[in-house]
């Protein structure tokens, strides 16, 4: 997925998607990650909503970064984020009541997703608008990707479907566990395990090369 075109912006984007993936690597924003990923659709919708808020608030924070005094920056960031979350909530309702129902309170809870405040504080308040948007988009994409990873696994095993379409034969006995809260914990745990395992393998290989 990494094109040879290695401009700074491309790496910024890819960084959020993979190397510094907010869920799998930084272990941030766990609540929505676990709560809404019982189907791929919900995961995708939540990921996109978060990405939307992330990009918009990063953009605004970056635009206003010279206008906001340091002392009140957190307060203004929260204000800005809360605004975009409210906007997102109304937009989702306008698009589909069903998705809004499925995501429930977790749309509102995007406000307290530490990824967004974290990016505003760590990146957008110090960088230009363009870079901030790309960074936010990368992180948003990474978050969406992670949610999709969980949603896909949980939906396929838990319901035998993917995006609502039957993918495993009719006779398939769904593993209800996967769409229960416990399944959420297990699936995320398993994904982290996989990431740890790959990291270990890579580290071991690096050592072999050195040795």
């Amino acid at each position, binding site marked *: 997925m990494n094109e040879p075109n290695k401009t700074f912006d491309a790496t910024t984007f890819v960084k959020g998607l993979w190397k510094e993936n907010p869920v799998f690597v930084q272990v941030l924003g766990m609540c929505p990650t676990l709560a809404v990923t019982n189907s791929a659709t919900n995961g995708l919708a939540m990921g996109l909503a978060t990405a939307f808020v992330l990009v918009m608030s990063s953009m605004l924070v970056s635009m206003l970064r010279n206008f906001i005094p340091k002392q009140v920056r957190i307060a203004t960031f929260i204000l800005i984020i809360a605004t975009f979350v409210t906007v997102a909530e109304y937009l989702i309702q306008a698009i589909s009541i069903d998705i809004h129902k499925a995501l429930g309170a977790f749309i509102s809870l995007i406000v307290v997703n530490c990824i967004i405040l974290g990016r505003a504080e760590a990146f957008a308040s110090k960088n230009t608008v363009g870079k901030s948007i790309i960074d936010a988009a990368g992180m948003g994409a990474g978050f969406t990707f992670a949610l999709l990873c969980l949603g896909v696994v949980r939906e396929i095993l838990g319901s035998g479907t993917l995006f609502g379409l039957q993918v*495993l034969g009719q*006779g*398939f*006995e769904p*593993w*209800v*566990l996967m769409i229960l809260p*416990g399944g959420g914990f*297990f699936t995320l745990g398993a994904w982290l395990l996989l990431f740890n395992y790959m990291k270990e393998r890579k580290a071991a290989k690096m050592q072999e090369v050195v040795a």
Partner: protein
Amino acid sequence: MNVLNKPLEIRTSPHLKSAVSTDQIMMNVVIALVPTTVFAIYAFGLAALLILSVTTISAVLTEHIYCRLNNKESTISDWSAVITGLLLGLTLPPALPLWMAALGGIASIAVVKLLFGGLGYNIFNPALGGRAILQAAFPVAITTWHPAFLADRFTNIPSSSLAWPFTTPAYDAVASATPLGNMKFNHIATDVTDMVMGLTSGSVGETSAALILLGGLYLVARNMMSWKIPVIIFLTVAVFSGIVHFFNPATPTPQFMLFSGGMMLGAVFMATDMVSSPVTEKGVIVYSIIIGIMVTVIRLWGGLPEGMMYAILMGNAVTPLLNRSLKSRVYGTGRKGGAK
């Protein structure tokens, strides 16, 4: 003198050991389970035999393969995987599809035991953890009960048992209700004698209270089990449900509570799992009371007919806290510490 010149063995004291070892304890637990297992096969026929073999083999194989993959010496010779597999099998409904049973055996060992570091480090009882996973994954299959003592039980395998892996099973026999299910949903009390003798329907190995107690007595006699845990659980359940029954005779009697469902199997063989129960004396008491109260509360007021599994898992979960906070008074500290 020759002998005086050969190298001497250097060891730290003590130079005496009591005879019993961990693998022997584990093996004796298996022995104690034999009467229950034999009766289970007698009551449910080939279905029970198959399910017990599948859970045991899958549990042992999982442990063996894990050790091999990690280039460790295989730990299956300590018998603990056998116990897990056997206990898991005994808690499952007789006509559960075998592929689910195998999955349960794998989950018990892989998720509940090996991930935590293997024997001695597992927080939850592996068999019950595996069963909880199965119960959450396949809620319908695990609450569909097969009748005991069918005439053709030794010649016929229920078609649900042989369902293709990952497919929904089809049941051929009419599902029967367990004593607890009858109590909860239909308010029919089963005769206690039937439950003691094991003439009712239920999980593979939970139906015969008498044989389970026999196995427990064997282990207690050999000092390989804490008798306090089952006794305190029974007392708590009897007293608690007795009081409730006194004020509201519609609720089950204490003897019904004691002899129905997984109470016996759970209290005697699962709650006493050494690894996942407290080690301190006071901890054991509180642990057993917690289990007794929780199982009674779930059975009487909860949504589920049976709560033994959840009660024991809850006990397991608080065990580290109990071990930490309920220590014995160390000699020479506190109350009697002074001169007089």
